[in-house]
C-alpha cells in the first residue's frame, strides 16, 4: 500500500520536480561525503573538492541522471495507470458484491437504455447511414420528373427517359423499371403462384453493379433480340429452380416462357424484395404517352460529375422535349437525387424521431442513476473523508467512484448488446416490410463499437457528477464536524429529477399525440365496411386468355358462380382495383366544360360489388347484370365527383369520357358514358387516404380488355372471412390450375397499409412508458433517501408529540416541487419543438392541449404513486426503533 502510494506520487511529476529531486539528492550526497572526509582529517575546502571529484562531472551527471529519471517516470506512469485501473476495478467489484441489489438495478437500467438505443441505432445505421451495397454508390442517382408546379416526384415517363438516355453527357448508364413491384404469376410447377417482379428497360442491374451468383448481365442486343429475358433472385433460383444451370433454362412467367439469364445475389435486389426482373426491349413511345409516368429511373453518373451538373445537363434535354412536344406536362426539368437517399426518404423522418426518443430514454436512465449516485454519495461521505485525510488525492477518489459506475455501465452494455442482438432480430422480422433497406439489418462490429461507446458515455454521464461532488463533499466532511454538514445533495438530486421529468414529458406528449392521431385515423369512416370481406385475386396470365375477351368474361362469370355457391357467402363483387389494392387515375372529359381538369379514379367492377362492400347508393341506380357488353355504356360516380363535376345539378343522365383510361381499349377514342347513379365516397387506399375521392365506376364487362387481372370481394355471412380463405382459394384454383390465386381478408390488407403508422406508434409509446417508469423510479429513489436522511429528525419530532405525517409531507412536497418544475419545463419544451412530429400526425394538431394535459396527468399520477410508497413507510416507523437505528 505504501509503495503503491509512492508510485502514485511519481505520476504527476514534472521536469522541474525531477530536477529538484536530483539536485537535492546530489547535494545530500556531497554533504555526507564531505562531512566524512572532514571527520577523517581533511580541511573543509579540501574535503568538498575531493567529494566533487569522486562524484564526476557535475553538469554531465545532472543531465544523465535527469534523463534516466524521466525515462523512469514515463514507464512508471504507464505501469501505474494499468495498475490503478486494475485496483479500481477490484474495489468496484467488491463494492458491487456488497450491494447486489443496487448493482442489479443499475445494470438493468443501463442495459435497457443501451439496448434500446443500440437497436434503434442498428436500424438508423443500416437504413440511413450506410451507403448502398453497390460499387461506387456515390455515383448512383435517382432521376425525378419536375412538373410545372409542385415538388419533383420519383416517377418518370418512358418517352422522356429515352431522350434523357440518348442526350445526356453526364450519365454513364441509366435504366428504368416499373414503379412498384407487381405480382408475376409463375406456372409450370404443381400449382401456379405469384412472386414480386418488375419490368426493366435498359441495363438496370449492370448500372447498379449488382453482383450475380450465376449467369451474366444481358447485353442491349440480347434484350432487343429476345423479348423475354429474366433475371431472378438467388432465393428464387435456389427454391423454385433448384439451382438449375442457366444455359437455356426458361421459366413460365405470366403465361410466357422467359429465358433466365442471371441470378441476383440475395441482399442486392433493387427494387427491394423483387424476385424476377423482366428485361423487355425498348417500346417506342411519343406524344401523349410522354405523360404516362409509370416508371422509376436510376442512373450512374460519369466519374467526377456533381448532382448539379447532371441536373443541368438533363434539364436542358427536358427543355428541348417541352419545346417540341407542348403536351409534355412533366418535362419542366429533371431532378437528380442520390439513389441511397431517395430510397429511404420516407423513413428518414420517423427513424429520426424514434432515435431521438430512445436517446431521451437513455438520458433519463442516466439522470436516474446519477440522482441515485448523489443520494448514495452522502452515505459514503464518511468513508471518503477518511480516505482523503489519509492522503488519498481527490482525482484518485473521483476515478475510483467513476470506475464503479463505468463498470456497471459496461455490464449494462453487455446486457444491452445481448438485448439488442435479440431485439434487432425480432424487430427485423416485424418491420422489414415497412422500413426500407431494413431486410439486411443485423448486429455487427460497427454496432458493437457503438454500444461500447454509448456504455462508456452513459457510465461517465451517470457517474461523473456524483463522483465529483462526493469527493468535494468528502473533503467538507473531513474538515467540519460530521453530522452537521448539510450537503447540496437535495438540490442537485432534485435538479436531476426535474431533468428526468422534463425529458419524460417530451416522450409522453409525443407518444400521446401519435396515439391520438392513430386512434383518430382508425376511427375514420372508410365509406365501405371491410369487416367480413375476403378478397380473392386472380390474374388471367395463361396464354389462352390473351386475345380472347369472351373467354376472359366467361372466367369471371364462372368464378362468380363458383364462389357464390360456397357456404356462408353473402355477396360477391369484382373489381380491377378494390379498396386497399391500388388504383388508376386518369384524365376525363365532361363534354367541353373547361372548368374540370383534375383526373378521376377509374374502377371497373362487376357482380354485386357495391353490396359486397356495403358502399351506399346516394341516388340513381347501381351497376347491374343488365350492364353488359352489348348495352348502353354507363358509369356510376362518387359523391365527390358528382359535386365537383356538376355542382348543384342532377348528375344522372350526364355524360363523361375516361380519356386516359379507355382510349386504348376503344381504338384510340374514349367513348361517352352516361351517369346512372351516385355512390358514397370511399377511402380506397386505407385509413390514411384523404387525397382524392373523385371516382368513376364502370361495368367490367364493358371493358374486357382491362379485366385481365381482378380481385373478387366476397362478404361472408358470419363476418369471419379468415376461416373461409382456404375454401375460397381451393374453389378458385380448381377453375384453372395454371392461374395463381391469392386470398386475404380486407381487414388484414387494411392493417398492412397501416403497418408503418402502427409501428411508429407502438415503438414511441413503448419508449414513453419506459421513460415514465424510469422517472417514477427516480422520484421514488430520491424521496426514499430524503426520508431516510431525516429519519432521526422525524423520530424526535414524533416522540415530542408532533404528527408524524408532518415531516413526511414536507419531504414529499419538497420532491414534488422538482417534479412540477421539471414537468413545466418539459411541457414548455414540448410545445416549442412540437413541429418535429407534424409530418407524422394526421387528424390531430401537434399543439393539441389534450395530449399535453394527458401527459401531465400521467406524470402526476405516476410520480405521486412513486412518492407515496416511501412516505407511507416512513410515517409508520416506530420512533424508538428509528432512533436506535441512527
Amino acid at each position, binding site marked *: 500500500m505504501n509503495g503503491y502510494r*509512492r508510485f502514485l506520487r511519481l505520476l504527476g511529476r514534472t521536469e522541474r520536480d525531477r530536477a529538484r529531486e536530483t539536485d537535492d539528492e546530489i547535494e*545530500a550526497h556531497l554533504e555526507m561525503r564531505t*562531512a566524512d572526509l572532514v571527520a577523517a582529517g581533511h580541511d573543509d575546502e579540501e574535503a568538498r573538492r575531493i567529494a566533487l571529484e569522486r562524484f564526476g562531472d557535475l553538469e554531465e551527471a545532472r543531465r544523465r541522471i535527469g534523463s534516466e529519471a524521466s525515462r*523512469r517516470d514515463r514507464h512508471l506512469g504507464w505501469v501505474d495507470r494499468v495498475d490503478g485501473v486494475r485496483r479500481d476495478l477490484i474495489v468496484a467489484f467488491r463494492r458491487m458484491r456488497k450491494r447486489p441489489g443496487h448493482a442489479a438495478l443499475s445494470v438493468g437500467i443501463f442495459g435497457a437504455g443501451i439496448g434500446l438505443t443500440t437497436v434503434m441505432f442498428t436500424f438508423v445505421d443500416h437504413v440511413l447511414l450506410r451507403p448502398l451495397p453497390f460499387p461506387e454508390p456515390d455515383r448512383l442517382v435517382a432521376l425525378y420528373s419536375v412538373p410545372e408546379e409542385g415538388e419533383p416526384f420519383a416517377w418518370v415517363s418512358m418517352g422522356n427517359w429515352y431522350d434523357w438516355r440518348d442526350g445526356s453527357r453526364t450519365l454513364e448508364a441509366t435504366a428504368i423499371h416499373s414503379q412498384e413491384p407487381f405480382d408475376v404469376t409463375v406456372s409450370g410447377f404443381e400449382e401456379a403462384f405469384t412472386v414480386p417482379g418488375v419490368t426493366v428497360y435498359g441495363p438496370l442491374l449492370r448500372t447498379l453493379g449488382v453482383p450475380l451468383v450465376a449467369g451474366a448481365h444481358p447485353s442491349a442486343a440480347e434484350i432487343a433480340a429476345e423479348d423475354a429475358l429474366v433475371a431472378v433472385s438467388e432465393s428464387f433460383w435456389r427454391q423454385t429452380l433448384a439451382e438449375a444451370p442457366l444455359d437455356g433454362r426458361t421459366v413460365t412467367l405470366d403465361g410466357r416462357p422467359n429465358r433466365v439469364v442471371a441470378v441476383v445475389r440475395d441482399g442486392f435486389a433493387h427494387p427491394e424484395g423483387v424476385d424476377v426482373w423482366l428485361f423487355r426491349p425498348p417500346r417506342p413511345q411519343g406524344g401523349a404517352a410522354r405523360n404516362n409516368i409509370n416508371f422509376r429511373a436510376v442512373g450512374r453518373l460519369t466519374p467526377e460529375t456533381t448532382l448539379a451538373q447532371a441536373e443541368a445537363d438533363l434539364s436542358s434535354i427536358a427543355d428541348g422535349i417541352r419545346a417540341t412536344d407542348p403536351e409534355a406536362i412533366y418535362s419542366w426539368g429533371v431532378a437528380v437525387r442520390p439513389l441511397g437517399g431517395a430510397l429511404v426518404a420516407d423513413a428518414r423522418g420517423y427513424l429520426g424521431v424514434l432515435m431521438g426518443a430512445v436517446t431521451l430514454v437513455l438520458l433519463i436512465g442516466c439522470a436516474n442513476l446519477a440522482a441515485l449516485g448523489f443520494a448514495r454519495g452522502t452515505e459514503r461521505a464518511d468513508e471518503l473523508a477518511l480516505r482523503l485525510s489519509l492522503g488519498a488525492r481527490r482525482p484518485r477518489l473521483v476515478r475510483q467512484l467513476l470506475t464503479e459506475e463505468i463498470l456497471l455501465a459496461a455490464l449494462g452494455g453487455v446486457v444491452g448488446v445481448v438485448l439488442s442482438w435479440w431485439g434487432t432480430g425480432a424487430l427485423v422480422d416485424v418491420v422489414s416490410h415497412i422500413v426500407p433497406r431494413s431486410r439486411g439489418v443485423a448486429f455487427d462490429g460497427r454496432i458493437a463499437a457503438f454500444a461500447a461507446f454509448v456504455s462508456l458515455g452513459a457510465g461517465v454521464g451517470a457517474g461523473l457528477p456524483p463522483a465529483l461532488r462526493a469527493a468535494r463533499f468528502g473533503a467538507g466532511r473531513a474538515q467540519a464536524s460530521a453530522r452537521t454538514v448539510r450537503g447540496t445533495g437535495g438540490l442537485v438530486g432534485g435538479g436531476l429529477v426535474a431533468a428526468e421529468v422534463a425529458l419524460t414529458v417530451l416522450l409522453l406528449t409525443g407518444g400521446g399525440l401519435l396515439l391520438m392521431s392513430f386512434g383518430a385515423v382508425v376511427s375514420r369512416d372508410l365509406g365501405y365496411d371491410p369487416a367480413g370481406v375476403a378478397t380473392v385475386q386472380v390474374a388471367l396470365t395463361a396464354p389462352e386468355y390473351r386475345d380472347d375477351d369472351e373467354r376472359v368474361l366467361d372466367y369471371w362469370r364462372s368464378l362468380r358462380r363458383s364462389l357464390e355457391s360456397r357456404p356462408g357467402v353473402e355477396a360477391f363483387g369484382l373489381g380491377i382495383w378494390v379498396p386497399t389494392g391500388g388504383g388508376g387515375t386518369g384524365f376525363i372529359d365532361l363534354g367541353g366544360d373547361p372548368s374540370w381538369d383534375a383526373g378521376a379514379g377509374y374502377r371497373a367492377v362487376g357482380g354485386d360489388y357495391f353490396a359486397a362492400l356495403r358502399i351506399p347508393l346516394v341516388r340513381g341506380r347501381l351497376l347491374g347484370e343488365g350492364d353488359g357488353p352489348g348495352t348502353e355504356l354507363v358509369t356510376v360516380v362518387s359523391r365527390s365527383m358528382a359535386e365537383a363535376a356538376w355542382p348543384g345539378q342532377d348528375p344522372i343522365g350526364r355524360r363523361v369520357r375516361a380519356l386516359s383510361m379507355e382510349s386504348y381499349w376503344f381504338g384510340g377514342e374514349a367513348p361517352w358514358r352516361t351517369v346512372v347513379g351516385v355512390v358514397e365516397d370511399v377511402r380506397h387506399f386505407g385509413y390514411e387516404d384523404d387525397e382524392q375521392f373523385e371516382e368513376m365506376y364502370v361495368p367490367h364487362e364493358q371493358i374486357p380488355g382491362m379485366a385481365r387481372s381482378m380481385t373478387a370481394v366476397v362478404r361472408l355471412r358470419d363476418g369471419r372471412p379468415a376461416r373461409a380463405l382456404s375454401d375460397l382459394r381451393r374453389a378458385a384454383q380448381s377453375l384453372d390450375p395454371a392461374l395463381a390465386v391469392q386470398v386475404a381478408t380486407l381487414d388484414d390488407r387494411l392493417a398492412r397499409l397501416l403497418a408503418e403508422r402502427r409501428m411508429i406508434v407502438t415503438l414511441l409509446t413503448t419508449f414513453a412508458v419506459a421513460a415514465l417508469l424510469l422517472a417514477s423510479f427516480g422520484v421514488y429513489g430520491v424521496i426514499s433517501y430524503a426520508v431516510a436522511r431525516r429519519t432521526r429528525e422525524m423520530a424526535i419530532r414524533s416522540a415530542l408529540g408532533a404528527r408524524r405525517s408532518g415531516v413526511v409531507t414536507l419531504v414529499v412536497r419538497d420532491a414534488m416541487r422538482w417534479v412540477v418544475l421539471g414537468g413545466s419545463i418539459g411541457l414548455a419544451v414540448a410545445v416549442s419543438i412540437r413541429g418535429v412530429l407534424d409530418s407524422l400526425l394526421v387528424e390531430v394538431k401537434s399543439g393539441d392541449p389534450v395530449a399535453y394535459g394527458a401527459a401531465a396527468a400521467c406524470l402526476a399520477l405516476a410520480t405521486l404513486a412513486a412518492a407515496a410508497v416511501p412516505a407511507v413507510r416512513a410515517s409508520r416507523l416506530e420512533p424508538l426503533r428509528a432512533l436506535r437505528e441512527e
Partner: protein
Amino acid sequence: MSEEALPLLKGTLELLILKGLSVEPLHGYGLALWMERGSEGTIVAEDSAIYQALRRLEGKRFVEAEWGVTENNRRARFYRLTPRGRTHLDREARTWTRYVDSVSGLLSQGGGSPG
C-alpha cells in the same frame, strides 16, 4: 571509464546495488560506501553512476525510493528493494556466479587443444 567497458560495468553496477540493498534500505552515499569498503577499493565507480543506475532500477520497479532522515539527522533519499527486485537479484546473482565459475575454471586449466 572507457566506452567499451560501460555495458559490463552498467549491468554489474545494478546487480551490486541490488545486493547492497538486500539487507536494509540505504541512500546513494551509503551504497557508495558499502561498495568501497566491501571490495576494499577494487571496484570504484564515479558516484554519479550509482544515481543513474538507481533511476533505472526504479523504472524497472526493482527498487522504491522515499525521502527520509539519516542517523545524523540529514535528509536523504532512501532506496529499498522490492519483492520484484529481490527475485531479480537472486536470479542474476546465480547466473553471475555460474559465469564467473566457468570463466575462472577455464582460466585455471592449461591451454587446450582440439582433439
